[in-house]
């Protein structure tokens, strides 16, 4: 009996001490299948990457300044991306952090400007205002290649919806100077996951 009680206590202690999962379950109705697409690292201009930390070290307001991961192209099914970014330093402004690329260019570009405003580069729509330097922001994008619907969730809230396009797509994230932007910026991503159904 003493052994059983000890086992109960051990189980309780183990439950209480269980570490947080490395990442959360995917959002929206599944069933989702996790997968791990390959990627290429793009470093141009003053862009550098170390693991999941991406930096633009210059304030140059022209030219190709980027440090990004470009993931493998997909062309079928419904795809979900999840990641958390934390800007640790951003003296610059108007930096693209996450993109869904279409066959003829960027289909959706999420960017941040001075003060923590997140916006869609095409159209300039404000998505959220809480990208405070030093705090994590959660990004989910859900893309249905069948009907072209693309939804962007910032911290769980649907902040942007669009449709259109066709053909091959791919995800990119990191730090990229938009046409009107400039660094420096230092951003670290974490909890990157991909699902499909």
């Amino acid at each position, binding site marked *: *009996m*003493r052994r059983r*009680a*000890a086992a*109960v*206590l051990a189980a*309780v*202690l183990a439950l*209480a*001490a*269980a570490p*947080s*999962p490395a*990442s*959360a*379950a995917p*959002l*929206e*109705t599944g069933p989702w299948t996790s997968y791990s697409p390959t990627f290429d690292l793009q470093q141009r201009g003053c862009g550098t990457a170390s693991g999941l930390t991406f930096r633009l*070290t210059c*304030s*140059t*307001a022209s030219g190709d300044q980027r440090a990004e991961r470009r993931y493998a192209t997909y062309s079928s099914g419904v795809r979900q991306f999840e990641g*958390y970014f934390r800007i*640790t*330093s*951003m*003296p*610059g*402004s108007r930096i693209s952090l996450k993109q869904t690329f279409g066959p003829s260019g960027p289909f959706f570009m999420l960017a941040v400007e*001075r*003060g*923590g405003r997140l916006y869609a580069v095409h159209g300039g729509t404000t998505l959220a205002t*809480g990208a*405070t*330097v*030093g*705090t*994590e*922001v*959660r990004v*989910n994008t859900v893309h249905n290649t069948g009907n072209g619907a693309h939804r962007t*969730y910032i*911290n*769980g*809230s*649907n*902040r942007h919806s669009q449709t259109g396009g066709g053909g091959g797509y791919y995800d990119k994230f990191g730090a990229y100077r938009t046409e009107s932007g*400039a*660094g*420096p910026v*230092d951003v670290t991503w974490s*909890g990157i996951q991909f699902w499909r159904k």
Partner: protein
Amino acid sequence: MIRRTLLVVVLVLAGCSAGRGGPAITLTATLTTPVDIDLRWEGAEPGTAAQIAEFATDPRGPWTILEFLPPDRRTYRHPDLMPRTAFSYRIRPVLGPATPPVPIRLTAPSFDVAAPADLSWAAPRSLPGTTGNGVPGGAPTGLLAEPRTRDAILLTWTDTSSDEEGFLVEILPQGAAAWSVVMVVDPDITSVGVQALDTERTADIRVRAHHYGTPSGTATRTTGG
């Protein structure tokens, strides 16, 4: 023996879930519409300087900050949520002392520096001799706000705390009713640049050595849609 063991189990559970004395904050979450969740809470930890509302889609985390809130707030709406998804919430008090406010005035024409400018000075850093001799709960001292460009100031201070979880940079624009958090930097940082918005060109600014208090219990609701 069984009774004694169960008592231990109960005490362990209470200790793990509530901390010493239990959470001071009682949180409820209501699914107000199929995709909107309203949080309401009661209670506060003594000395609360700010609060954070956090969410997760797994009650074990990871937790993500939704917003820094003033200490007297008791409600928060999480809107337009992903459908058919479980959302968990908690409220965490932010504690710790701040420097006295320092005025910032980004109005002088001499600071109208042409872009692009070298902004490398603005990266967070620990300046030599400004940290390492702290005591628990020590307030930052010697805050200086030095305009560097038309839009940016350099903040420097001395770290006198040995137990901070980081520093909050808080701003009070002229005419604003409450301070807001504009930046969170890591422990031991004592220098960082702040890019001011148009509404922040005349403002007060301060730096807080912060740590988090006991979180509320977790409230979970599943969206419809």
